[in-house]
């Protein structure tokens, strides 16, 4: 199946990308239209496993739309139309026999604004686990603790798991929704401008957390902050007007971009 598809040019040509044999999510000629508006056109992207991949680009370049294609959240929008293929692991995300809820469990997502549910801290993290049918108190508690530990929130909330999630600070809420997402063990975790609502100190701690998470998870990070992309990511993809302009090793892309548009963007001359 994979070999039938032409290898993504940018991936093959990108310096430092050659050692990426292991791909978590891959798109082939992915196009997306919202009604008459073309949001993505012909995106071929391979997201390396257990690495941090940053998606950068000006506003409206299709970064968030791309994320929403991977977990098929665009299906919820009435006039959205997706063409092309998306492989999550070995699963064709848009195949007829793909179970939507299973796909979405495997492709975790953290939204731009923290969106804790109006439940207790405990129940927020338990939400996805309960959907999976986990009911036993002990197993739930163990997995909730593990998820909160992984999201670096456990020490702050261990004593007040039954408090409302809205009592947490914005930074804590962001880590809570990350804990909620990774509690169900997704194969890839997509983060849509996750630090945009955080203050600088919280942002720094948050970036450390991303590095720790990358030990175990594949991260796909949308950011409008190029310094952040340069600091935390291993790979960077530059999107412009719905097209993938350039993809490659972060250091290479930022120091020596191959495309003129990329250079304009990262030097601040554009966007």
């Amino acid at each position, binding site marked *: 199946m994979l070999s039938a598809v032409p290898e993504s040019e940018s991936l093959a040509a990108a310096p430092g990308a050659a050692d990426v044999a292991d791909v978590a999510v891959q798109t082939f000629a992915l196009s997306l239209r919202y009604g008459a508006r073309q949001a993505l056109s012909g995106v071929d992207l391979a997201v390396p496993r257990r690495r941090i991949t940053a998606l950068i680009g000006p506003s409206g370049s299709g970064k968030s739309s791309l994320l929403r294609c991977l977990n098929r959240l665009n299906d919820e929008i009435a006039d959205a139309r997706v063409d092309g293929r998306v492989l999550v692991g070995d699963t064709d995300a848009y195949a007829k026999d793909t179970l939507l809820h299973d796909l*979405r469990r495997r492709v975790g997502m953290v939204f731009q604004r923290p969106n804790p549910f109006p439940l207790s801290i405990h129940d927020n993290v338990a939400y996805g686990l309960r959907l999976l049918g986990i009911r036993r108190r002990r197993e739930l508690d163990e997995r909730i603790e593990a998820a909160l530990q992984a999201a670096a929130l456990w020490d702050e909330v261990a004593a007040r798991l039954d408090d409302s999630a809205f009592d947490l600070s914005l930074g804590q809420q962001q880590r809570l929704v990350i804990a909620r997402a990774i509690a169900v063990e997704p194969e890839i975790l997509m983060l849509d401008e996750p630090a945009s609502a955080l203050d600088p100190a919280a942002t720094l701690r948050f970036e450390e957390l991303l590095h720790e998470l990358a030990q175990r998870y594949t991260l796909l990070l949308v950011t409008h902050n190029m310094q952040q992309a340069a600091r935390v990511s291993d790979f960077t993809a530059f999107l412009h007007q719905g097209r993938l302009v350039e993809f490659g090793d972060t250091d290479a892309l930022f120091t020596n971009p191959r495309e003129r548009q990329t250079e304009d963007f990262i030097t601040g001359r554009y966007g």
Partner: protein
Amino acid sequence: MNARRYGAAGTWLVAGLSGVCVGAIVLLFGFLASAGLAPFWPAPVEAVQLRDGSTVLGEIVASEATGLSGALAIRTSELERMGSAYQRVRSSDIAARSQPADAVAITLVDGRRLYGRGSDGEEALLAAAAAPVQAIEIVRPNALGVLARCSVFFHRLARFLATPPAASNLVGGVLPALLGTLTLVLLMSLIVMPFGIATAIYLHRRRGFAARCVRIAINQLAGVPSIVYGVIGLGLFVHGLGGGIDRLFYADRLPVPTFGGGGLLWAALTLALLTLPVVVVSVEEGLARIPSSLREGSLALGATHDEALWTLLLPAARPALLTGLILAVARAAGAVAPLMLVGVVKLAPALPVDGVFPYLHPSREFMHLGFTIYDAALASADAIRGVPRAYACAGLLVGVVLVLNLTAILLRNRLRDRYRALET
């Protein structure tokens, strides 16, 4: 400058209109309370001496001023039947009025009032009643202090709330009507909420032609006069559904109807139909107000649409559900016209709820406070008793609606606190 002047005028206008609203509410409650509660207060028994030498003993129930000379309406001992002993005495005929301390007022179980004087007046009066009925209250109102009068007042109020009526619903308590109203409203809520919520969910999810038709239909339903619902209930539920059940299951009892007559269930169904639009509209608004981030967050964790709905969206919409319920209860408790066609009666032989299995009897005819108001005010044989009774029932009905609403509002405010963070 102009804007400021208009602003001040607007402020005064708003303040004035709000004041009118508040004033109207205060006036309404004050009037209902004073007019409705007056009969519970022990009125003095007067001995009115006439110029011809005779004495009339009784309660002054009305005094009228016609031209130069006025007149008094006095209720004297009702020896035969209730409402039979009113006397109209012209002021010019009155020689003297007094409130003797030894006057006794006796209330009989059947509602009659007897008046007498003297320390042994009670037995004599009871004997005079010459009927096998008991006295439920013997007071000497003129000799009572304020505290004792209060005690009589509260005893009468308690009897009003907790006993069945007497004398074809002219006096006595309104317990069956109160219970009937409460049972009806609760049953109606149980029926309308699931249907209303389900419809609201459907309208919230679908945007197609069918959904538009449903929406238009619901909105039209809100504009139909309530008496029309009574006719619909009569035709659809009582005769159609009830008659069908009778033909199928109780054919041996026909032509005596079992379900094919007016009854609690049919009245509740009719009211549910009547209140469906308000529930649908408020629940749908509530669902629409929930931020989409909540729904998408749930879907992104692998929830199906139904799971997101049941685990997150409906719980978050609970304040709106309660708003719908509040509006529905307020509307249902006040609807009398449709009920008169589908099962409300002046006097029901049995309560709709009792201790006999199955405890709730949905096919029984029932009494209702709203209908009792109408009945007491217009169809009563004794207007002097009937009209204050209508006010008392009206006050009670408003009180019931108020208590139900306050409960729901308190509950809603507690829920709202929990979901406040969602609104931002």
